[in-house]
């Protein structure tokens, strides 16, 4: 597979390390520090634990279009989000993961703003 790096042009996939589904960019917020004596078995903690479990361990693993993280270890050490077809191996789009993460953040902020 050839990955069309946004900065370096076409590079062989063997220069990269594969991490997995690009949903790994969106790490859920942790409950944060608690003051001593505070109940940690409350609903908020349970919800956070569940979210973290799902984030670390569950995957959609879909057949077809798949957004995924690749690391250019033997190149410029950038993280990329590659949109690839898991049935044909065709690559549709390659972006810098940083750009995707920032776009996700802005999207979340504007969504929050509308509420």
């Amino acid at each position, binding site marked *: 597979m050839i990955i069309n790096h946004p900065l370096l042009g076409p590079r062989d*996939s063997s220069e990269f390390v594969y991490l997995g589904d690009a949903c790994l960019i969106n790490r859920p917020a942790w409950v944060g520090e608690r003051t001593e004596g505070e109940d940690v078995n409350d609903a908020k903690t349970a919800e956070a634990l569940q979210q973290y479990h799902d984030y670390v361990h*569950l*995957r959609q693993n879909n*057949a077809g279009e798949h957004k*995924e993280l690749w690391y250019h270890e033997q190149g410029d050490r950038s993280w990329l989000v590659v949109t690839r077809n898991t049935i044909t*191996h065709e690559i549709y789009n390659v972006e810098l993961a940083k750009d995707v993460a920032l776009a996700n953040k802005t999207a979340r902020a504007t969504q929050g703003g509308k509420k």
Partner: protein
Amino acid sequence: MRNSGFRYSGFRYSGFRYSGFKVIKEALTGHKGWKPVWRTPEPKKEYDIIIIGGGGHGLATAHYLASRYNITNVAVLEKGWIGGGNVGRNTTIIRSNYLHPENQPFYELSMKLWEGLEQDLNYNAMVSQRGILNLYHSDGQRDAYVRRGNSMLMSGADAQLLDQEGVRELYPFLDFDNARFPIKGGLLQKRGGTVRHDAVAWGYARGADSRGVDIIQNCEVTGFLIKDGKCTGVKTNKGNIGAKKVASCVAGSSSRVMSQAGMNLPIESHVLQAFVSEGLKPIIDGVITFGAGHFYISQSDKGGLVFGGDIDGYNTYAQRGNLPVVEDVCESGMAIMPSIGRAKLLRNWGGVMDMSMDGSPFIDRTHIKGLYFNGGWCYGGFKATPASGLCYAHLLATDTPHEVARGYRLDRFKTGNIVDENGRGAQPNTH
């Protein structure tokens, strides 16, 4: 051994249908007289149990449900043809050389079932206990193998630690003095070996069919009938089929099938490639695995060297891999066995595997009543076929986990009871 072919008397076929005479007669008459050994039924409206997926595990589950738990109102639904999945694509190695207490007794039960399989099925599956040798190349690796060997012995399996001389006696042609990874010895399991993979699918299919199980090919499950949190059947290209219990058993397609029930699984699908050389004179009589890289090799009865290595490492449902892994496998082969460089490669292929988050499988209920899940077998589910079938049948029949499959729960990441043989964490392509 527990049983012989006589167990089948009274069923639709009895005893011995194959003979040397029949083979010669068929050879001379264009092989037109062979009969199918299982039926091609139309699906009934409803079954007690529907098994999705006619791979090794699905067919074994059906066989043990019928033969050990007396449940015969069962259908196996297969979207293609039985034996067309990974059960017919793997490199046929069986072994019980695991470390963890959640795994080793399970795989040792599987080994025992392999040892009695041909008598149980009255079918020649060519179970060949030719021995599997894991090479070690450093002191640290030797110590790890000592520990593993002890864990094997504790489960009742056999294990033997060989020094360099011991390995040299078995395989003098290995590259013992390799500059980077000299061979210092190996862990030998003599009861490990290979089994004819297609025959496993066919043998279990015949065993199940002869007891009344319907094996329905070209029948793809396209959805589940779920009402009020209870699964009452499946949607298929042959219409809806009802069932009291539905058991998914689709290996590499696990996420695709279970997503139809709204579930995300702790699984990624990856491709593993396999390779076969031209036929050669006998040179390797067992199975050898490289300890410093991903490479393993055996020789088929036809003479082809059968070998493989690492998975490609990215999510895929394509049953083919890419060239960098081909190169890696061949380099690793050259590192332990330079003579392999003279052999020509005849063919290679890939199969899609269900790589789980800790490298271990699942045999469990789901949160949906009546819906069960078996999967996450990674690159090592062929050896597990008999035990997986028996334990899944046990779960389906009794609604309790079989005692050697208690660790294979779907919620083990939540409860902290992961079964990670390699200690690599939630990164499926590293297991």
